[in-house]
């Protein structure tokens, strides 16, 4: 199966760079889902919100010529779509799993419906990479870490902001309380419903932005089923990262490299069915979840305690 390995400096760096790019895609979506789940709302609509963000973001970027407008439009579309889940699961207390899955359906459908006329419109990446002056010259590190699209830097910054807001502000404390014991958060004067609505919409905005990044930067075009289950990997990453923005970032990088491997393996002279290799991120997700569970045996779960439980004041 393995003929001749040709590890050149350029090909290894290329793989790592692509890994960071795919990692950005996963991280944006997973970070948003972390916020939603921290407030006690599981949103399985990530895949759908990502898809809608991908098509809306691409269309806006093409029509305005501005990739930034595309990312913003993708985020807005994701946030708007997540509102449906917020109303059903938070407002009306519907089952979060059912509502989230229906949202994935709705998002995939809307993405195809809206993007129908744009399938033949292929462009190269609309974003230009930003080379951080002074740092991009460092051998290896410079190329892998400091020459990326602004979205990658934005994702890193977002991770820091989310960590700070969750752990160092009153809003963050209220949000985490809503996800652990909603009644206590309510008694302390926080509006649980408002916090959860906001958290779900932040999650939607991140998922939508992630989708827009996929079409405006990574692929440069829109086609049906472009997200290909990556939104689901993002959901798994939240568990992998134990609901902590920093660890979620590590997971996103790990899975980013796995996703990047497929298109790069031929460069290394490795002959392996690309389709079988395409399975690895999904199998890896299962393996990683199993390993985490074995290691976490007999330890308290890091999952927010109130996740999946609708809150109604009268039932306090």
């Amino acid at each position: 199966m393995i003929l001749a390995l040709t590890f050149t400096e350029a090909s290894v760096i290329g793989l790592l760079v692509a890994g960071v790019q795919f990692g950005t895609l996963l991280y944006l979506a997973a970070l948003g889902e972390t916020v939603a789940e921290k407030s006690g709302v599981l949103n399985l609509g990530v895949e759908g919100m990502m898809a809608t963000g991908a098509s809306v973001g691409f269309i806006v970027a093409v029509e305005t010529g501005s990739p930034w407008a595309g990312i913003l439009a993708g985020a807005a579309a994701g946030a708007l779509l997540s509102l449906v889940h917020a109303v059903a699961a938070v407002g009306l207390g519907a089952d979060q799993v059912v509502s989230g899955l229906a949202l994935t359906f709705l998002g995939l459908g809307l993405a195809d419906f809206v993007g129908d006329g744009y399938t033949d419109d292929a462009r190269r990446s609309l974003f230009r990479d930003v080379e951080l002056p002074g740092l991009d010259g460092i051998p290896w590190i410079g190329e892998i870490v400091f020459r990326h699209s602004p979205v990658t830097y934005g994702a890193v910054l977002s991770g820091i902001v989310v960590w700070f807001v969750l752990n160092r502000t009153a809003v963050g404390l209220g949000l985490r309380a809503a996800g652990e014991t909603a009644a206590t958060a309510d008694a302390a004067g926080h509006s649980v419903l408002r916090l959860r609505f906001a958290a779900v919409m932040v999650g939607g905005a991140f998922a939508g932005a992630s989708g827009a990044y996929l079409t405006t930067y990574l692929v440069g075009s829109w086609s049906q089923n472009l997200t290909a289950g990556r939104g689901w990997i993002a959901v798994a990453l939240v568990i992998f990262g134990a609901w902590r923005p920093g660890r979620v970032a590590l997971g996103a990088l790990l899975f980013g490299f796995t996703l990047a491997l497929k298109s790069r393996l031929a460069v290394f002279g490795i002959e392996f069915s690309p389709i079988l290799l395409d399975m690895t991120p999904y199998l890896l997700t299962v393996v990683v979840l199993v390993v985490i569970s074995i290691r976490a045996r007999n330890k308290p779960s890091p999952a927010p305690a109130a996740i999946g439980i609708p809150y109604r004041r009268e039932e306090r």
Partner: protein
Amino acid sequence: MKRLVLTRREIPTRGGQPVAFLFGLAFALLVGAILMQVSGDPAIDVYQRMWERSLGSTDTWSVTFNRAVPLALAGLAVSIAATMGLWNIGAEGQILFGATAATLVGRLFPDWPGPVLITAMLIAAVIGGALWALGPGLAKAELGVSEIITTLMLTEVAIRLITYLEQGPWKDPEGFGFPNVTARPPQAELGDLWDRTHIGVLLALAVIGAFAWFINRSVWGYELRIAGSSRQTAAYAGISMRRKVLGVLLLSGAVAGFAGGIELTGTAVRLNAQISNGYGFSGIIVAALALMRPSAIPVVALAFGAVQVGGQSIQTSLGVSPAVSTILQALILFGAIGAAVFSNYRVVALDRQVSVA
């Protein structure tokens, strides 16, 4: 000043769900129409065409009935898992692997007579579906790994496995270079009841009936209902949760796999990744709308079959994106969720003073 609040009813209104379902349908058609009008598609024409091509004329009933079969079986698979509070989100993957297992039997014994071969293929499909759920079942039962993620990830794996078989090991040598799996033996085709409505319709109803009997009348079903409703009671009665969790997921996978076998022998000629065109996912919505009740699943599945079959017809004839059908399916559920609030809650007007105090 009065303020409107929702208070929970002691007992949910009887017959609320059919009303909620009809409301969901109306809601979906309305929102869908607005969406189409805004984007310049003729909504009325689209709905008319969807109706004509699904339930509106007897010519197309067969297609709609046949489509309802995998939807109903997938819905049943989801509701079986739900008896233990589990979510089999990966019925899609189990359908696909069930069809793959059935194809393997067809390749091994291409000369067996039709009825024997069909039976063997369906049994293989059932085993294949259960096998595809085995990993998630063990992981959930032994380690508590979320079955939602694992079953779904295995769906992505199943899709790629079939693509791999198409391009390599099972590629049709007489397929003019196209990446297609060799067609199944021609005698392995389910007979028709009438027109092109195949026996799968009866088989699906039989499986659903059998499970309804099983859950309500058998000891295992009784234990299952106890274990599903209260962990404590189950532990007190000495019921093993681990075995129930594993058993339920295997059974759920088996039913989904059966759907894959029916598709291969009923409507498809050969295995491909589109043999389950999202049926596993639609099945989740079907099961949710049926409130996980086996008796309601066939009705909802038929309605969804009509929406799907109708949705496929509008692209070729009207140039409207078939995504409309996907959107409608999701909107039906959201509409029903909204309406169901009123069977579980009632609106009460409270004095503002009272509520502030």
